[in-house]
């Protein structure tokens, strides 16, 4: 056992399997526990909003899912950079593992938003900039997944999807600004700006929401790590199979 020289050690496939194996039970426990706590608190022990009525309860899923959908893309972006610059094989696999989870988060955000929109705005869907950017995010995820599926050489697929993720991120930001330019929209602004720390939402709704947000985060990490571990094993399996075939 050699000394831990640098943080990149953790990305060595064998090390990665080691520490994720230890961390995963905790991540699952924290993730599921906090989600359950936050959702039960929010669903059963908070009252209704004076404007939105009981639909406000949708926020406890809608916002955490939306948050993780966006962060999932950030994760893919970071993994892509690491793969292209440092060529840490695990980072390519983390990107691949994050995409389907991020897509599901995006879908949850879209579905809950659409269901919420019917009573609030009187329509399932409106071409509001935030909603539209979110739909485009879902399509970015789909494109990324499809490109992984379409290319059988894994290293090549890792390279190309990483380039897509990086160029895509640039354009996602551009689209966001362009979309503001294009239409004002119905969706409300950010009420829990993480950066400034201030918030406009009532404490009453805030605490359960904050707990589910943390819970979703851990759940997301756990899912991504399990998938990444599966990808590592699948690579190893294909290497073994190739060897046995010769």
């Amino acid at each position: 056992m050699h000394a831990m020289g640098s943080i990149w050690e953790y990305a060595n496939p064998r090390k990665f399997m080691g520490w994720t194996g230890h961390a995963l039970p905790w991540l699952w426990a924290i993730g599921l526990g906090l989600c359950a706590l936050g959702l039960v608190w929010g669903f059963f022990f908070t009252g209704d909003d004076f404007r939105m009525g009981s639909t406000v309860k949708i926020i406890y899923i809608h916002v955490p899912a939306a948050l993780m959908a966006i962060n999932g893309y950030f994760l893919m972006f970071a993994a892509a950079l690491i793969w292209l610059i440092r060529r840490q094989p695990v980072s390519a696999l983390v990107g691949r593992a994050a995409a389907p989870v991020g897509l599901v988060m995006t879908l949850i955000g879209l579905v809950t938003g659409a269901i919420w929109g019917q009573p609030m705005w009187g329509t399932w869907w409106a071409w509001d900039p935030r909603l539209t950017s979110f739909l485009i995010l879902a399509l970015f995820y789909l494109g990324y997944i499809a490109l992984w599926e379409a290319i059988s050489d894994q290293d090549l697929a890792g390279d190309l999807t990483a380039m897509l993720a990086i160029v895509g991120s640039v354009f996602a930001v551009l689209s966001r600004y362009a979309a503001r330019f294009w239409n004002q929209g119905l969706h409300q602004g950010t009420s829990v700006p993480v950066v400034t720390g201030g918030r406009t939402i009532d404490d009453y709704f805030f605490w359960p929401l904050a707990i589910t947000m943390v819970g979703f985060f851990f759940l997301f990490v756990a899912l991504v790590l399990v998938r990444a571990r599966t990808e590592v094993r699948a690579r190893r399996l294909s290497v073994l199979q190739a060897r046995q075939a010769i």
Partner: protein
Amino acid sequence: MDLGQYAFEVLAAYGASFALLGAVVATTLIRARRVRRALEEAEARKNG
């Protein structure tokens, strides 16, 4: 617990979300197990 006039919306939103979450968790775990089994078999064949 009274959800008022919006009971359907709230329950539908929760239901759909749990279904989607459940689906991604299930597929993740199932594939993880399948690949782990296959790998164990391949390692056994290699070593044995």
